[in-house]
């Protein structure tokens, strides 16, 4: 945890997670995660593979049994500063507090059409189809197509589009650029940046170029605990800390743990960010980051 409690400002945060613990099949997956999601912009949740990022967001959503405190602040339903305790709520009620969730595997319903996927996500009030169609015109064009026949990028747009229909107070996106082609990564990044202008976003992301561009603050997990909380640019500028916390910038062997493609780093540096864009998390990523940042800016 270290400096997390010092830098955290609980009353200012939109979502505060304290001492979140998860045990799955007798195995302790999370041993105490602390996390503050800023009330504006993008907050990144970082860490090596297996650090507990996805489990953390699944625990926030109530998709795995959890203990600890998860509080959503602001809004009309609770006294200011108190917030609504989410950790005892079932998933559908967590969502109805105003949280949109785009899961790691995108979670689109393959046997349903694009329009049906969106209709399923409609909750009370008028669904914000104009916003969704403006950000992702492809979803309107392909309304009648089965979601299972969409490309990975289109499925990701659908997954994000579903979170935008309901005027949510927070959007959680778990690795939205995983496995996508560089051009699509740029489109998704652009959409996330647009979304974050109006709704705060908690972003789990391995593409550090994207994180550097989008996220003002970040929390880093290691072995199921919060290892670092702070300013994203500062962390990524500190090569030693980035290597220690994220396993990047060091020996190539580190990269194989997550990315697995030893050629990715070289391609990323030489190919103008192509490697970083395709989600390669190899040793070369931090070095390649400046080029990659250019690649994702449209």
């Amino acid at each position, binding site marked *: 945890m270290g400096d997390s409690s010092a830098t955290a400002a609980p009353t200012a945060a939109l979502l505060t997670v304290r001492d979140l613990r998860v045990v799955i099949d007798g195995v302790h997956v999370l041993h105490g995660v602390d996390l503050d999601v800023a009330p504006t912009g993008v907050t990144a949740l970082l860490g090596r593979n297996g650090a507990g990022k996805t489990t953390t967001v699944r625990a926030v959503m109530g998709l795995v049994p959890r203990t600890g405190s998860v509080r959503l602040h602001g809004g009309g339903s609770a006294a200011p500063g108190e917030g609504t305790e989410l950790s005892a709520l079932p998933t*559908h009620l967590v*969502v109805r507090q105003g949280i949109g969730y785009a899961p790691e595997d995108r979670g689109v*319903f393959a046997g349903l059409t694009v329009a049906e996927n969106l209709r*399923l996500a409609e909750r009370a009030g008028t669904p914000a189809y104009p916003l969704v169609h403006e950000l992702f015109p492809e979803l309107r064009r392909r309304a009648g197509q089965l979601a299972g026949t969409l490309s990975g990028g289109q499925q990701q747009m659908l997954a994000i589009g*579903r979170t935008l229909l*309901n005027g949510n107070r927070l959007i959680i996106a778990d690795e939205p650029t995983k496995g996508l082609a560089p051009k699509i990564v740029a489109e998704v990044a652009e959409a996330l940046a647009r979304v974050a202008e109006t709704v705060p976003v908690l972003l789990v992301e391995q593409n550090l170029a994207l994180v550097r561009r989008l996220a003002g603050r970040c929390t880093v997990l290691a072995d199921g605990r919060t290892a670092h909380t702070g300013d994203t640019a500062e962390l990524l500028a500190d090569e030693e800390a980035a290597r220690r916390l994220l396993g990047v910038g060091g020996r190539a062997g580190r990269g194989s743990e997550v990315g697995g493609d030893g050629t990715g780093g070289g391609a990323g540096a030489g190919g103008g960010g192509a490697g970083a864009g395709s989600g390669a998390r190899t040793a070369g990523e931090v070095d390649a980051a400046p080029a990659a940042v250019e690649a994702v800016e449209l």
Partner: protein
Amino acid sequence: MDTVILLLCTGLGLGALYFLVASGLSLIFGLMDVLNFAHGALLSIGAYGTWWAGTQGGMGFWGAVVFGTAVGTAAAVLLELLLIRPLYRRPRDQILATVGVGLAVPALLTGVWGADARPFPQPAALAGTVHLLGAIVPVNRFVLLGAAALVLLALRLFLGRTRYGLVVRAGVEDRAMVTALGIDVRRAFTLVFAIGGAAAALGGALSGLYFGSVHPGQGAGLLIFAFVVVVMGGMGSVTGAALASVAVGLVQQFANYYTAAGLGDLSVVVLLAVLLLVRPRGLTGRLA
């Protein structure tokens, strides 16, 4: 030729019965991962409800069918709320509980009305036969077929055109993701149990027509073949269940007639084995 026509109509009638049981079974398994061994009990409840209302209750035939179906539906809802839901995260206990209900209900029916088959009230209009292409076919076969067709149509409209149908189709694919869209999927569970129970109880009411009598084990005997139908059709697929029902009913009738009695039942199992070898995901390509 007339024999073929008769076997065809009888096989289709039997297939219609299988479909009425299997459609609910398939949806329940597809959405909830619950193997409902109590589904045959729901059929028996529907059969006895109809029989009771038609004889002791003094209702007309169709009134009795409505009564039996309503009782079976209510029983299905109670089963889901009182037994299935509390055991939601304990699938093994869930299966044991449904097996228990599947055994207890016939025992209860035996205790109250005896183990013997009871003659089923047949309205005059449905007791007769019709001549079809030279064959003499009992009218009730067509009643069964009509009922199954209506149920299939209604289920397809429900699944395709309604919000809850959308929730059920999505839930069959990925239940957790449905809840992650803010939907209380448990309400769909109860609804699917009610629909499945209604179809099975209707099947029970009409099985009395088909067999001419009701007995406590009526549902259990049909349930085995309904499970075969569900696996063949693909779990969670109503259209698959309809196709598989027809296949199982026809194969059973023809094999029983043209080979030795009893071989028809065996041939159904062989059909299932062959299908699983050739198309492991069932007729419609859904996960079997």
